[in-house]
């Protein structure tokens, strides 16, 4: 909660300079000097992969900034976008990609994924998404479930995904912290953690939490609400005790409580609430809850009835992270309509198309295209730029990383996808995916098609036989 980040630096330095010498253990500050709360809390060890500069020429560039550039070029180097436009100077050592007939977008961001926490194959042993032992488990962190060798990860990369929010499941009222991850091949989740990204907190309304607990937890929607309120009442007191102690350092520090630590950081605005919620009336209840405790709900996820309160969502500044067309699998999903995204857009709301699915994450471009065209046919025009934002800039905002990724602008991280054609066509495929300037996927080059350990020897390589 109050990590002293500077302490992390000597540790990283020790690792980086270890070289080929025999490993020695890095020194740990003695318990007498610091307490756990003052030490680094599960730091990111993400490092940019060294890559040559790349210039993509003569493509249609969808920047997600309101600008669409025909016959455009984009140059990126050292993981940063250098320039975007119709005339782009490139250094002599730049790799030149012919974008003729191709489209370029920012890397796709899925703000609702369970990759790695519900890994494939879907066995009990790999089912790590719902800590359904208590209706409030704000103390659990999705990154501690995440398996970097999930074979679904390369499939998502091939769909143009560069960043995900990996979330706990929806069995609980408060399910735990999410992990914001760069979708790159890695040995550890720490190597994937998006540097500087805030945590999200998964909350869930409606049928799921009230179904799971019955006699030992909420069994009604009113029980759900009482459960959130009780948790945040505790968190208020916890926050006050710690904030006071941080100011005064008088007496012993308060007893650390991981559950309340997460909730207190929601109250401080440091952790962003990601709220699974289907029905319009329940979303309105959750906004009341947020007002009661003084926090913001960053996005309602699934939100199949967002269109019924699109005006309210726009006023509150809460995003709607929705599917293009899922409906009917349960009662609270019965009123899902194709035009949900377009109606929220038309009301001035912030739309995200999310997947919640290892299959859907591979074609968020198609899902956005479907939702865009449904709007267009219904007389709710959606521009291609708006639809690109639904899967790039808007989810970047939901995750609190929109100053770093989500658009193609100079200075932004070079998360870039080259598409075979208009990405909103059913026939579009990601040809190349650059993550932080690194060519992590190239459809025409098997040496740039990452495979997890799991796949080796048991899942035939793309295009190959057993």
């Amino acid at each position, binding site marked *: 909660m109050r990590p002293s980040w500077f302490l992390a630096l000597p540790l990283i330095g020790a690792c980086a300079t270890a070289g080929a010498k025999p490993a020695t253990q890095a020194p740990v500050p003695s318990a007498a000097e610091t307490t756990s709360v003052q030490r680094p809390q599960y730091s990111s060890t993400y490092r940019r992969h060294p890559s040559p500069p790349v210039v993509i020429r003569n493509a249609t560039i969808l920047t997600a900034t309101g600008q669409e550039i025909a016959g455009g070029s984009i140059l990126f180097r050292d993981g940063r976008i250098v320039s975007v436009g119709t005339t782009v100077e490139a250094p002599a050592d730049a790799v030149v990609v012919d974008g003729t007939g191709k489209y370029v977008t920012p890397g796709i961001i899925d703000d609702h994924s369970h990759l790695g926490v519900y890994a*494939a*194959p*879907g*066995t009990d042993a790999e089912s790590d998404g719902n800590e359904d032992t208590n209706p409030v488990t704000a103390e659990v962190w999705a990154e501690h479930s995440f398996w970097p060798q999930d*074979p*679904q990860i390369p*499939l998502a990369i091939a769909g143009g995904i560069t960043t995900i929010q990996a979330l706990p499941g929806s069995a609980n009222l408060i399910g735990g912290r999410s992990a914001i991850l760069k979708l790159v091949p890695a040995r550890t989740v720490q190597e994937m953690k998006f540097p500087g990204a805030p945590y999200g907190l998964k909350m869930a309304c409606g*049928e799921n939490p009230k179904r799971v607990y019955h006699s030992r937890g909420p069994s009604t929607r009113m029980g759900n609400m009482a459960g959130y309120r009780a948790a945040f009442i505790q968190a208020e007191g916890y926050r006050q005790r710690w904030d006071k102690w941080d100011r005064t350092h008088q007496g012993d520090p308060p007893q650390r409580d991981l559950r309340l630590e997460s909730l207190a950081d929601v109250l401080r605005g440091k952790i962003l609430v990601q709220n699974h919620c289907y029905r319009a009336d329940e979303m309105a209840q959750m906004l009341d809850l947020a007002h009661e405790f003084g926090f913001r709900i960053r996005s309602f996820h699934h939100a199949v009835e967002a*269109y*019924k*309160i*699109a*005006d309210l969502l726009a006023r509150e500044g809460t995003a709607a992270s929705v599917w293009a*067309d*899922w*409906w*009917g*699998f*349960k*009662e609270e999903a*019965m*009123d*899902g*309509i*194709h*035009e949900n995204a377009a*109606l929220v857009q038309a*009301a001035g709301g912030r739309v995200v198309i999310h997947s919640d699915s*290892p*299959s859907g994450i*591979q*074609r968020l471009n*198609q899902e956005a*295209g*479907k939702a*865009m*065209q449904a709007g*267009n*046919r*219904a007389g*709710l025009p959606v521009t291609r730029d708006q639809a690109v934002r639904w899967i790039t800039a808007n989810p970047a905002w939901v995750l609190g990383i929109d100053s770093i990724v989500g658009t193609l602008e100079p200075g932004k991280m070079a998360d870039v996808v080259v598409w075979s054609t208009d990405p*909103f*066509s*059913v*026939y*579009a*495929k990601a040809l190349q995916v650059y993550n932080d300037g690194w060519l992590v996927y190239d459809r025409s080059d098997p040496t740039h098609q990452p495979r997890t350990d799991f*796949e080796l020897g*048991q*899942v*035939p390589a*793309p*295009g190959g*036989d*057993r």
Partner: protein
Amino acid sequence: MIAYLLAQTIAITGGTVYPVSGPKIEHATVLIRDGRIAAVGTDVAVPADATRIDAAGKWITPGFIDGGGQMGLVEIGAVGATREARMDGDTIAAAFNVAEGVNPASQLIPVTRVEGITTTLAAPGGHLVSGQAILLDLDGATIEQMLVKSPVGIVVDLSESGKDEGGGSRAAVAQHLRSAFRDALEYERRRVDFNRGQIEPLAASEADLEALLPVLHGQLPLIAIANRRSDIATALRLAREFKFHLILAGAQEAWEVAGDIAAAGVPVLVEPLDNIPSYDALGVRYENAATLARAGIKVVLLENDTHNSRNLRQQAGNAVSYGLPWDQALRAITLTPAEVFGVADRYGSLEVGKVANVVVWSGDPFEFSTGVEHVYIRGREIPLTSRQRELLERYRHLPPAY
């Protein structure tokens, strides 16, 4: 018979017609009379009393046929009270025909047909032998009016999910099925002894054994869900042993044994957007449909999510992206399923005499930018309305006018 009474003469003129049974025809007319296709071509005389539909610039195809799902048998996935596709308590549920479970008032039907899907398989699920699948047109006030064919096949589950009731082992699944098939034939030979109780207990009830006989006499296909390459081989082996007509469903690793499937002349029902590895099929991949088609196998495409059966269009488009030629993808959701389900004399193409299931599209039917302009089922123009479209209109302007 309301649909037939309302049927009239309709001329869809000037569009590009994809009859599927032959090459596309530009600037052609499709004439519908009394629920059937009366003429297709560029020199069709339009009767004076015909309702004319100007389809210049439009694409006209047969109504799409979804080779999977549980249409009419499920309303709300999580609500057991609305699910009808599984019979409890019978491992060999061969006699269980889902037809009388179909709800013609299901909200899924309008939602699906306004997107150009006019006909669908409705299949039972669960158990080792799940029951009898049927084929439905998505129009009609009664089950009888909706039925195209019943049964079209008996569904068995040779995949991982069939194992629990098969004895916990794939080997036991095959053994159970062999016992049921043998006992059905034994039952047929010794009906008299059976009725007198002078026979050892058999592997299934009398009704279920009786229901398996058309399969064992080659009159009704066995639709076997099998994903792992070895399970597909088991299905082919059983078909050889008992000489039944096999249809493979799911078939995720079928691409690995395409030659064997082609040699056996077995058609395959596949979902193109299926590539999440499981221990049932680590080799599942997007190229499955295209690989099978290249081997000369009859391929039918399906959408497993019944609520989004409308995404059959997207499935077909993605099959094209991963190698299936466009014309073959169209055939895989029209004429091929009609052939595989035994209704190609009436369904699947725009040919004179066939049932008038016809869709007028604004463009390529697989593209998201394309809309449905007209849908005809058995010659009746389907109103392009659904509960979802009513919700759209109610909430188009906020607050809604209740």
